């Protein structure tokens, strides 16, 4: 059999394939050749074949038949074989397969190999498999490996020391306690670490960076709080020390180690006052002395800030941290701005005042080009709004609402409503803000805002005239934004008399006749842009005006719909909150059968009256909906059964209605998680 082709050849050949099918064909052919070569137990070319298999595996093709071959390679004495064998084992096997257990013997032997490099890079596979099952086997199996771990500190070669320590610690950390005697585990780890630490201190004179590095990793246990002063000293030396070219990154000595130590300090100082106090100075020193012109300096500063925030630091230090974040916000690098905004968002609850100082910078970030930065700036801005800055902030946020992407508009609008509700300085300002949102981002406003807004409007009694006037004017301009139209028609229905009376204190009253108002409302009814719900609102408004307007002749033509409209309402269930997900669920769907049985008993013929109603509402669409507005107003329910019940119009209805989001083409999809409402009941 001819020698199998080399890896490079294979790669070159596969890259010439022009289609996926061609590539697959080449791969299959090669796999077949490799399989037969494996069957022949060919030692010479096994390494080459496994390497090719690994390449094919990376392209996404199955390579499981190579697993055992990797084991054979590992067992081989040749260095190349071992290298590829371990790589293959790491890539093709994971802890869930039993095959890796066969390797334990090999690994144990290799740990004592004559060449230190073999030992050294064994740590990578060990790292890959230092998971539960492996660890169980290795540690449970007579504790041999644990013995090996203990021997570590005695090995002088630093390149060997470090990886094995690290893996030893990982193994300990990963095995669940039930598989080890706790005392034994503690003892082993502590012994190892203590010995190691002594050795490190001895070696430290030569600044053996990686050994330091690894031992820092190992110290992640709370026993070692007493070592905080020593860690502080190491960090100090690191910062003050001279230039070391091999550890240097852009003028900063060994930033990876610095970050490690800071992270360790963070863990050790977490809920401990004494440790936190011991680190105050060094943290302040790092925070003020680190060079910030490059990303690496900022990385260290960022880690320092995270540490300060997590430990029990004094307030001066916290303010320093927040100021650093504030400086980050002014940085040209968008990554750093992003990181600053994220961190500030986490701290705004606890250090509110300090973050307030950077409010203007944060608000500037609203104009950033990057989407994630804008989103975070928006969230942070809402978190910073309070009674004092509401006017200024709202101006900026409304401007942002105008110009931002559609994905943001819903969240921004909700945020504006929420903030306005909490901190509005005056009712007029509040109404104006609402108007502004409705007119600029009206179609993105969430469904539940409509009832909320209506409730708000009814509460500001003295503003009714002003409100209805403004809403009317907005309606004249634009009837495409459904939430705006719904709120407007409701208000007109409710306060139409104020509108035509021409009394308004807040602004110039407009002269409107009853006919004009009715024209507008009827226009909504027939417009293509109106959703069925909107039509419902306008129809109700027209009906209401029959009690408020004097010229009721126009309204008489709708009389035939009265019976259908004034049907006895079904049982309403109370929704606990005003959240959107509860809106229709409880009423519409909860017990469709009982509702149906309630209204169907007299088998009714659809009368022409109901038909008219149906036609008006746009045919077969279901128009369901029931929603209880926050306090306990009665609800309107649209049904499509006939059956006159006759009810006098003097009963007032309050009918904030809502609808499933699918009726609103523009509204966000948060919805109703339940099934769509049932078909008509007749």
């Amino acid at each position, binding site marked *: 059999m001819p020698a199998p082709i080399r890896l490079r050849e294979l790669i070159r050949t596969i890259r010439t394939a022009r289609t996926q099918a061609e590539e697959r064909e080449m791969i299959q052919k090669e796999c077949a050749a490799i399989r037969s070569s494996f069957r022949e137990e060919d030692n010479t070319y096994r390494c080459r074949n496994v390497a090719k298999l690994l390449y094919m595996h990376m392209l996404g093709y199955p390579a499981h038949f190579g697993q055992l071959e990797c084991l054979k390679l590992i067992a081989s004495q040749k260095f190349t074989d071992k290298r590829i064998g371990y790589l293959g084992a790491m890539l093709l096997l994971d802890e869930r397969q039993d095959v890796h257990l066969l390797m334990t013997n090999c690994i144990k032997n290799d740990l004592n190999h004559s060449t230190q490099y073999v030992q050294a890079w064994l740590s990578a596979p060990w790292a890959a498999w230092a998971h539960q099952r492996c660890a169980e086997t290795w540690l449970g199996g007579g504790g041999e490996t644990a013995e090996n771990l203990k021997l570590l500190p005695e090995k002088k070669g630093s390149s060997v020391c470090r990886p094995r320590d690290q893996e030893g610690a990982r193994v300990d950390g990963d095995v669940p306690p039930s598989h080890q005697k706790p005392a034994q585990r503690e003892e082993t780890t502590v012994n190892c670490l203590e010995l190691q630490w002594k050795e490190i201190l001895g070696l430290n004179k030569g600044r053996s960076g990686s050994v330091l590095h690894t031992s820092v990793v190992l110290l992640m246990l709370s026993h070692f709080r007493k070592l905080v002063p020593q860690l502080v000293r190491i960090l100090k030396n690191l910062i003050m020390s001279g230039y070391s070219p091999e550890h240097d990154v852009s003028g900063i000595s060994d930033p990876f180690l610095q970050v490690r130590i800071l992270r360790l300090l963070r863990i050790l100082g977490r809920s401990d006052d004494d440790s936190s106090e011991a680190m105050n100075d060094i943290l302040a020193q790092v925070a003020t002395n680190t060079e910030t012109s490059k990303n690496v300096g900022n990385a260290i500063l960022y880690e320092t800030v995270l540490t300060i925030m997590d430990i029990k630091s004094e307030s001066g230090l916290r303010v320093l941290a927040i100021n650093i974040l504030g400086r980050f916000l002014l940085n040209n690098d968008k*990554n750093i701005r992003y990181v600053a905004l994220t961190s500030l968002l986490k701290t705004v609850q606890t250090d509110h005042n300090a973050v307030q100082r950077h409010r203007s910078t944060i608000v500037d970030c609203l104009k950033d080009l990057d989407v994630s930065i804008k989103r975070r700036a928006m969230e942070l801005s809402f978190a910073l709004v309070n009674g004092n800055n509401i006017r200024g902030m709202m101006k900026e946020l409304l401007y942002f609402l105008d110009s931002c992407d559609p994905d943001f508009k819903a969240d921004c609008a909700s945020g504006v409503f929420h903030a306005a509700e909490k901190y509005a300085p005056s009712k007029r300002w509040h109404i104006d803000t609402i108007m502004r949102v409705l007119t600029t981002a009206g179609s993105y406003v969430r469904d539940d805002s409509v009832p909320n807004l209506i409730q708000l409007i009814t509460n500001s009694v003295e503003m009714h005239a002003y409100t209805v006037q403004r809403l009317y004017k907005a309606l004249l301009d634009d009837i495409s934004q459904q939430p705006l139209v719904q709120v407007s028609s409701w208000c007109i229905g409710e306060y139409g008399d104020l509108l035509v009376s021409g009394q308004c204190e807040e602004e110039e009253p407009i002269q409107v006749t009853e006919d004009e108002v009715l024209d507008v409302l009827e226009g909504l009814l027939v417009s293509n842009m109106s959703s069925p719900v909107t039509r419902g609102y306008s129809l109700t408004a027209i009906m209401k005006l029959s009690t408020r307007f004097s010229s009721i002749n126009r309204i008489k033509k709708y009389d035939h719909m009265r019976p259908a409209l004034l049907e006895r309402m079904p049982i309403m269930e109370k929704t606990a909150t005003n959240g959107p997900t509860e809106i229709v669920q409880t009423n519409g769907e909860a017990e469709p059968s009982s509702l149906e049985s309630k209204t169907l008993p007299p088998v009714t013929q659809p009368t022409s009256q109901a038909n008219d109603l149906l036609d008006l509402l746009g045919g077969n669409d279901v128009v369901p909906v029931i929603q209880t507005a926050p306090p306990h107003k009665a609800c309107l329910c649209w049904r499509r059964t006939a059956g006159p019940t006759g009810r006098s119009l003097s009963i007032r209805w309050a009918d904030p209605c809502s609808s499933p989001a699918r009726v609103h083409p523009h509204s966000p999809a948060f919805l109703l998680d339940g099934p769509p409402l049932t078909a008509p009941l007749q």
Partner: protein
Amino acid sequence: MKRKRLNTALNMQFMLLFSRQGKLRLQKWYVPLSDKEKKKITRELVQTVLARKPKMCSFLEWRDLKIVYKRYASLYFCCAIENQDNELITLEIIHRYVELLDKYFGSVCELDIIFNFEKAYFILDEFLLGGEAQETSKKNVLKAIEQADLLQEEAETPRSVLEEIGLT
């Protein structure tokens, strides 16, 4: 992807290298996952990262992880870290790895990594262990790789000599 780990400085879950066309050039996983899961994650993540516009941040949130990615010429280097980790230092780690590759291959390009993927793995394993930087000295990493390469060559030479004489 939850896994109990020691709370070390950087909990990197995986690193992926892929081209602008979405072809995978290197994958290193520091968490145990089945082949199927790995493929799924790779596919989704590659799509997400390739959809990013050039001016956007190097960080994004994906599932419950933070993804740090950086493009070097035609290759994307993509790392997944956990929520409490430092994104900026991860960028430095990526950069350090690229520098190591560059030093080793001499002005590294994508083709080098394609044709010598096993070497790329070896270098990565020498630098990162369990997802964390274990050797912070560039010199030492390269020295270790050099030595390993030498050992490999020494082992191989006898065979090729014999082949040349035609004795095998």
